[in-house]
């Protein structure tokens, strides 16, 4: 998987993510204050912390869904030029939360095609995704008939089906058994080797070398 070639026109590939002085609040509660975090191409960060410490909120803030109380999230390309955040999020960011966006009543193949095409498919990314995640036997089933693990594999397929540099993953491994965890680990390793970036909120360690970042206890 070559991110340089697969990337879409109109937006340069993200090669750096810089979070500085980020303060996030949910309602009355301050999740964290003045958080600094930096990633460059090939970096993977494993966010840890107690339930409610703000892992998901941090991912959603990077994806642009949550407006921070203060601080900034900045994206840059390989030459360290800034990329406008809205552009980066529209073309270069994958957000995969515990809600996967799959429609229960639709056939798996339709959903896979939609998710990958909507986010910008690569030439043969979808075939790769079907092969790596062994989705072929699932493609003609309705999404609601899939098990939690199968459903997660289908959702993960869009990471390969549509090449985007920054992966924001919320508990990506939770419904998967150990065999599939290794497959997803290999996917991540390939992505990093191709210059991608990963921020993942996890409870169990990821099967790849990562930098840990602990958000601590529930504030």
């Amino acid at each position, binding site marked *: 998987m070559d991110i340089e070639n697969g990337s879409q026109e109109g937006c340069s590939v993200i090669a750096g993510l810089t979070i500085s002085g980020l303060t996030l609040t949910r309602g009355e509660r301050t999740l964290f204050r003045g958080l600094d975090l930096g990633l460059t191409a090939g970096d993977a960060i494993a966010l840890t912390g107690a339930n409610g410490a703000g892992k998901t909120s941090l991912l959603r803030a990077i*994806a642009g869904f949550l407006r921070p109380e203060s601080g900034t999230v900045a994206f840059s390309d390989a030459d360290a030029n800034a990329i406008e955040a809205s552009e980066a999020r529209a073309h270069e960011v*994958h957000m995969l*939360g515990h809600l996967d*966006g799959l*429609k*229960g009543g639709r056939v798996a193949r339709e959903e896979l095609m939609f998710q990958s095409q*909507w986010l910008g498919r690569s030439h043969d990314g979808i075939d790769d995704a079907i092969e790596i995640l062994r989705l072929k036997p699932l493609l003609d089933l309705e999404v609601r008939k899939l098990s939690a693990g199968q459903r997660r594999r289908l959702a993960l397929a869009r990471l390969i089906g549509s090449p985007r540099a920054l992966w924001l993953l919320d508990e990506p491994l939770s419904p998967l058994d150990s065999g599939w965890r290794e497959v997803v680990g290999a996917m991540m390793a390939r992505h990093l080797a191709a210059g991608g970036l990963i921020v993942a909120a996890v409870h169990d360690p990821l099967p790849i070398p990562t930098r840990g970042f602990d958000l601590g206890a529930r504030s």
Partner: protein
Amino acid sequence: MSAVGVLFRRELALAWGGGGGPLLACGFFACLTTVVPLAAGGDPAVLKPVAAGIAWLALALSSLLSLERLFERDLEDGALDLLATGPVPLEVVFAVKALSQWLATGLPLALTAPIAALALGQSIELAPLTAVSALVGGLGFAFTGALGAALALGARRGGLLIAVVVLPLFIPPVVFGSGALDRAAAGISPMSALALLAAYVLFAVVIAPPAGAAAIRSAQG
């Protein structure tokens, strides 16, 4: 195929299928227009003058039916996050969803409306005008309705909230639409009322997407 095309195809498939599609809207519409003669008495002299008004009221109510699932389901299953990280702005996503809502309920309703109006005693010459005005008005219903659905996102019992927010906004098209039919029935040109209806629809089509996109963003935060 472009991202917008891909999204449009999916939204149309979701709006057509999966329960509460065009059949439900048209069935509800037919029920409403059947109940009125039963409640008000079947005297053609009573029904004929109000046929246009009843048809438009039923159109407005039938357009409310599937609004609740327009954004709520996407919020619940995470699809809204996926749509928000796509290559086109949320305003365009909103417009695509409203347009598919129009094609999946407004269009079938516009085809059903002349039949129902006919059954209420409206003269057959008015059938084409009934269909055209219902089609144009339906576009306005779809965009203002989608705005109401976006505003009600995340609220408990959102469906009821949508009806309360949206029905007052449906008053102008109901007035202009049934007014056009009344004028035509009286032998006056309906163009002035149709122009007002079209003006309302244009206004809705322009205003609803940015407002709806803002509502969706705040529901995601």
